[in-house]
């Protein structure tokens, strides 16, 4: 794994302790360099990009689909598409936003293709450490998250875990900024209500 553009970075906005890490796509310059290498035909860059962003892409797809299997398929689809059109990625300015948008599109495509009548219920959260005291709470929070509409859940993930602005969330999911912000706020409000902490 390339540590230079590792996917894990200390969460800034969430105000977490230094030992707690959030998945935040790494150094945009390094990621941009990996994109340039791939565009030039260097397939080794795929591994660098994967190591930098796969967890982020998996997380986004998991929160959108609610299924680990679908999320894994979405990640694979992102990389297949990425490798299949190197000419396109040569013109990409923001590699991180581009990848997240691809993951969103892949997840949506997979959901459309499978047309599931019953939503998957895989855990979308896990404790940072195995001996975390609040494992039960994490499990409950995860199950409550799955009761949110997928678009709201996705917006919450993009805002909280990927630390995107509403402008970036809108760009990644193909909706106006106002819609992205509304989805996030509605999702959080609903989650708080489900948790019983709504004022």
């Amino acid at each position: 794994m390339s540590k230079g553009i590792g996917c894990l970075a200390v969460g800034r906005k969430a105000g977490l302790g230094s030992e707690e890490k959030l998945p935040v796509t790494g150094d945009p310059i390094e990621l941009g360099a990996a994109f340039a290498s791939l565009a030039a035909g260097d397939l080794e860059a795929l591994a660098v990009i994967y190591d930098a962003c796969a967890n982020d892409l998996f997380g986004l797809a998991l929160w959108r689909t609610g299924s680990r299997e679908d999320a894994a398929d979405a990640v694979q689809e992102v990389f297949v598409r990425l490798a299949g059109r190197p000419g396109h990625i040569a013109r990409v300015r923001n590699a991180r936003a581009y990848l997240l948008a691809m993951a969103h599109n892949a997840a949506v495509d997979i959901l459309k293709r499978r047309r599931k009548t019953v939503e998957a219920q895989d855990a979308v959260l896990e404790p940072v450490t195995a001996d975390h005291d609040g494992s039960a709470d994490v499990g409950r929070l995860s199950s409550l998250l799955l009761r949110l509409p997928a678009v709201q859940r996705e917006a919450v993930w993009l805002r909280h875990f990927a630390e995107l602005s509403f402008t970036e969330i809108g760009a990644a999911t193909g909706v106006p900024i106002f819609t992205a912000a509304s989805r996030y706020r509605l999702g959080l409000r609903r989650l708080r209500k489900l948790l019983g902490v709504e004022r």
Partner: protein
Amino acid sequence: MRRDLFSGTRTPRTPDDLRERTLRAARAAARDASAASSPPWGFSRLDLAWMAALLVLVLCHALLSLSSRPPAAPSTAPQANTAATQLERELGLKGPIVVASGRETGKNGNTQGELIKELERL
């Protein structure tokens, strides 16, 4: 608020086997794309499509030009000249017949051939 909700949590990691599976599929896709977009002779499929379209266009143009051209009418001018000269000699005429050669002449727009026929009837 976000800290309260999500502190101590993270998104599940990717499955262990996903990396190898994904990279293998991506490399295969890259090879396929490369093979499809650059044939050995160096033209892309788009280039070939353009060339084929241009070739068809040129061929169609050539075919239409050939088929729409009217059949070449046999020229009567040399025969007419010969006949006119003969008539000049036989009838002792000069001028008008020879001048009319090769163009429409007369009040009714008679052609030279018709004029000769008229003269022959005399």
